[in-house]
C-alpha cells in the first residue's frame, strides 16, 4: 500500500500571523484615537500662548463647544473673531463684535442663539430650549493686546456663557521662534 506523507506546512514562507496580530492592534488603536475629518473651526495659524500649568484641563469632547479664534485685525484697531458657526461650510467665518452699520453685535447674537436656542432668550422648549452646558473656547493670538480680547469676554458675559476656556499649549512642545 502506498503511504501518503503529509508535507510540513509553512516551509517555504515566513509565518505572518504575529505580524497580522500586531498590525491589527495598531489599526484598531489608530482608529479609536485618531481624529479624522473632525474640525472644530480652530485656526491653526494662530499661535496660542504657552502654559506651564500641569493640572490644566484636557478636553476629551468638543461637542457643545464653540471655538472662537481671536486676533488683531490690522490695520483696524478691532478684534478679528472667526468661528465655525455654520458646520455645513466647513470653514470658520468672521463674526464681527460690532457691526458699525446696524450697531448690533453679531457675535453676541451668535452666542445668545447657541446659549438660549433659536429665539436667543432664556426659557422655551424644543429649538428654543436653553443650553446650560454651552461653553466657549478662546483661541487667542499670544501677541494681541487685552483690548482685543476684552470685547469678546464682554459678549460672553452678556450672553451668560457659563464656561469660558482659554486654549494654551503645553510648555514641553517645541516652540518655533517667530521671525
Amino acid at each position, binding site marked *: 500500500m502506498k503511504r501518503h506523507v503529509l508535507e510540513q506546512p509553512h516551509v517555504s514562507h515566513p509565518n505572518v500571523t504575529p505580524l*497580522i496580530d500586531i*498590525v491589527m492592534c495598531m489599526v484598531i488603536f489608530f482608529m479609536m484615537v485618531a*481624529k479624522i475629518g473632525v474640525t472644530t473651526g480652530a485656526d491653526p495659524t494662530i499661535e496660542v500662548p504657552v*502654559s506651564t*500649568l500641569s493640572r490644566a*484641563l484636557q478636553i476629551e469632547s468638543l461637542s457643545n463647544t464653540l471655538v472662537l479664534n481671536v486676533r488683531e485685525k490690522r490695520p483696524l484697531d478691532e478684534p478679528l473673531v472667526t468661528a465655525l458657526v455654520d458646520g455645513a461650510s466647513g470653514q470658520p467665518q468672521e463674526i464681527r463684535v460690532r457691526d458699525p452699520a446696524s450697531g448690533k453685535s453679531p457675535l453676541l447674537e451668535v452666542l445668545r442663539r447657541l446659549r438660549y436656542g433659536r429665539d436667543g432668550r432664556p426659557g422655551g422648549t424644543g429649538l428654543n430650549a436653553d443650553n446650560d452646558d454651552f461653553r466657549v473656547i478662546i483661541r487667542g493670538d*499670544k501677541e494681541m493686546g487685552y483690548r482685543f480680547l476684552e470685547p469678546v*469676554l464682554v459678549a460672553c*458675559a452678556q450672553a451668560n456663557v457659563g464656561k469660558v476656556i482659554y486654549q494654551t499649549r503645553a510648555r514641553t512642545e517645541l516652540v518655533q521662534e517667530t521671525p
Partner: protein
Amino acid sequence: MKLSVGKKVSYESGPNMTPLVDIVMVLLIFLMIAGTFAGQERYLVSTVPLRQTGAGGATPPPGGFPRDEPLEIHVTSPVPDRFTARVGQYKAESAGELQQAMRQLLQQLVAAGKRPEDLQVVIAPDRAVKYKFLIDVYTAAQMAGFQKVGFSTTQ
C-alpha cells in the same frame, strides 16, 4: 539519468494572507498620516464669573456676583515685552515672582481664617497688555494655590 526535481511548494496549508496584509498595511499608514492627536493642548477654565467694573448697570452673571470682594491683580505693560503685576502690597515683574508673591498672600489669608476654596482672584489688565502675559498671570495665580481665577473688564 534521473533528474532531481525540487520539492513542490505547498500553499494549501492555510488561506493566502498576502491581500489581507496589503490592505491592513495601507489602512495603518493612512491612519498614521491622516490622524491628528490631542495632547499638546491645555485648557484654562475661567472659574470666576466675568466682573464688569465701572458699569453700574451690569447684569449679574449666572449665580450672581461673588459675595466676598475678590483679590485683584493689576497688570500693566510699561514696555511691550514685559509686564508688571501688582497684587496687595506685592509687585512682580515675572511669572515666577508673581507666583511667589501670590503664595505668600495665600498663606497670609489662610492664617487670617480664609478658606482657599472661597478666595477669588480677578485679573484686571491694562488694555495694552499682551495676551501671553495674561496667561502667565493666570497660570501663576493657579499654581500659587488659588482655585478661582477670572478676568475683569472695564466696558
